[in-house]
């Protein structure tokens, strides 16, 4: 890390009092327009200024041609879209105005041959000299929901939440933010490290680890410059908060692609994997698994043990979920006798009488909330996967859209189904909170019909509705692995 960086520098980046967009354009297709637009459109409440060759106004924002014309000590962050050659003078002028953080979206640096590499080296030296945080260059931007800030050259602006993201590839900032939009589990901060010239992924993660707005760190990396330093710093982050990491270039083919993308050196992936396990990093296999792991850490308590019960309204789902669990370190327990007896008291005899708890369509009005409470509350159970939410609401949707609605009693049954599914989703979240245990609800309806009363109620509870039981099991396995990692090291 550049030695001059302090938490105050990161606050200037993520919680700026004012933002300057350098290189504002009037053309709505140019970065200098889009970034200004995104800052204004996402509800940023600080003062916004622009610079351009011609002074004037763009999107109602004052634009100056000379930085000296800007007020002193009113702006913390400059978002730079100007050509690389213009940036040293620009940053010097910004520093004089009290600006302490810059995000360089401009390309033409380390990724652009020998000349660009020289300019990047100059940029790093200048950052040090000016005592400025200089993120990028060649980066997509920075997002900070506590500040309603969307200073980036592409969409989207995510819902607010507790996940802090740092990525070596700007595209994956977009992908993660799109998952945030899709799942409803939101983001606190997100930053694309670009060429990571003066501020690296571990620098951002280190800030997140002590950031009050962030509970979980999520990172995409393709390679690391100094493996030892990365290990030490990632370990320090992972001790303070869950750190979910996905690595591009895990295979020979991926490594060749990474070498041309970010110039990252190849290490044996098994060494990288061992490093992650040693540091307590949650290493996800895919981008969606990474987001789902982070979203799970952000919204569910850690399990105290690995004893899992599956609750399902139909048999087949339970069977494949049992298979998925059996491939992990999670334990699909035999139902404790007292729990079986308690469930017998609530269910007609055709239920499975073991784990998975398959209700086999035996549920009546209050069965699911009652059964969830019994299972989640049992001292021999550490986590629950709940399957079957939303099926009746799916039928309700078909009825509502059909030509027989609302007659023939359809209106009444549609309302009932949707009320019930919402109630079941709330019951799962409530039991999870009451007993401080993870309860994961999974159904493909979260993707098919996000507006289905079941998945919609899971979202409303602030939690992730997993798009499949397998993905819920993967997320739960990540939770248990972190809990286990901490437990064995606390002994």
């Amino acid at each position, binding site marked *: 890390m550049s030695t001059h960086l302090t938490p105050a520098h990161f606050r200037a980046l993520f919680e700026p009092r004012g933002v300057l967009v350098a290189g504002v354009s009037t053309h709505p297709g140019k970065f200098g327009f889009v970034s200004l637009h995104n800052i204004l459109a996402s509800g940023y409440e600080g003062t916004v200024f622009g610079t351009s060759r011609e002074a004037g106004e763009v999107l109602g924002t004052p634009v100056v041609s000379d930085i000296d014309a800007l007020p002193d000590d009113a702006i913390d962050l400059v978002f730079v879209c100007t050509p690389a050659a213009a940036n040293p003078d620009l940053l010097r002028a910004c520093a004089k105005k009290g600006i302490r953080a810059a995000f360089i979206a401009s390309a033409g640096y380390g990724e652009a041959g020998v000349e660009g590499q020289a300019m990047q080296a100059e940029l790093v030296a200048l950052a040090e000299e000016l005592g400025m945080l200089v993120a990028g260059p060649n980066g997509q931007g920075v997002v900070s929901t506590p500040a309603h800030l969307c200073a980036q050259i592409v969409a989207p602006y995510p819902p607010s939440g507790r996940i802090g993201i740092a990525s070596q590839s700007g595209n994956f900032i977009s992908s993660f933010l799109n998952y945030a939009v899709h799942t409803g589990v939101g983001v606190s901060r997100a930053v694309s490290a670009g060429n990571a010239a003066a501020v690296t992924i571990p620098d951002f993660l280190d800030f997140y680890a002590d950031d009050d707005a962030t509970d979980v760190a999520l990172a995409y990396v393709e390679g*690391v410059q100094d*493996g*030892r330093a990365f290990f030490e710093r990632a370990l320090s982050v992972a001790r303070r908060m869950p750190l979910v990491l996905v690595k591009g270039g895990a295979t020979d083919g991926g490594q060749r692609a990474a070498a041309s993308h970010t110039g990252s050196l190849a290490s044996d992936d*098994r*060494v990288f994997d*061992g490093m992650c396990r*040693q540091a307590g990093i949650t290493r996800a296999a895919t981008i969606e698994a990474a987001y789902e792991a982070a979203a799970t850490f952000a919204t569910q308590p850690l399990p105290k043990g690995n004893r899992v019960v599956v609750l399902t309204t139909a048999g087949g789902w339970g069977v494949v979920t049992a298979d998925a669990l059996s491939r992990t370190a999670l334990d699909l327990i035999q139902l404790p006798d007292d729990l079986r007896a308690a469930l017998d008291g609530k269910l007609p005899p055709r239920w499975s009488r073991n784990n998975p708890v398959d209700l086999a369509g035996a549920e009546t009005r209050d069965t699911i909330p009652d059964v969830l409470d019994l299972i989640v509350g049992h001292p021999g159970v550490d986590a629950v996967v709940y399957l079957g939410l939303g099926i009746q609401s799916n039928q309700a949707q078909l009825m509502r859209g059909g030509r027989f609605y609302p007659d023939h009693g359809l209106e009444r049954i549609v309302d009932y189904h949707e009320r019930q599914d919402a109630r079941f989703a709330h019951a799962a979240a409530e039991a999870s909170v009451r007993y401080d245990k993870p309860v994961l609800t999974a159904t493909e309806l979260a993707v098919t019909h996000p507006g289905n009363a079941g998945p919609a109620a899971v979202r409303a509870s602030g939690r992730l509705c997993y798009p499949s039981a397998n993905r819920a099991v993967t997320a739960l396995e990540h939770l248990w692995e972190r809990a286990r990692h901490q437990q*064995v090291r606390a002994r």
Partner: protein
Amino acid sequence: MPTLSEADSKALLAAHGVAFPDERQAHDGQGAVGAAAEIGHPVVLKLGGAAIAHKTERGLVRLALGDDAAVAAAAEELLAAARPEDGEVHLLVAPMLRGNRELIAGLHHDPQFGMTVMLGVGGILAEAVADVAFRLVPIEPVDGEEMIAELATQRLFADFRGEPAVDRTALVELLVGLSRAAEADERIVGADLNPLIVVDGRPVAVDALVELAS
């Protein structure tokens, strides 16, 4: 890069807590016979020396020598097989150990992460199976336990073909010993314990090769 002889490799690693079987060095047939008697038959006899790295390929290992005569004959043959470029040589007398399971362990230098400790499933198919786990030096015992748990072939560590389960504590001690050696001695850039034969559940390194920085 220079390598140490088997005997020196073992001595270096043993100083950091890596356990090896009771072995003796001898310089002639008579010495070898005496050492074998102390260790107990059957024994293994190898020709050792700082310049000898590929004993098996050169036929410098004699297995399962059951009595004094066999030891004396093998000693004579091995000493006669020494080449001028081998420099100073000796005879290494070791107990003949048997087990159905083989593991490998070692130290490797990674270009990004530096020294690492490795544990893997051994045997002739080891390379194809590629069931290995790595950690960065230094490791704690808990890291060693997790390395074992991480290997895909977990059945090898339970009761196996009439042999007891692998003594995980002993294996962890061995891994931690490797780590300690790499941490303490900066000259070490690589080490191979291959094979680690599981003898009555206990992992025993019957060969060792340490590489030093040039």
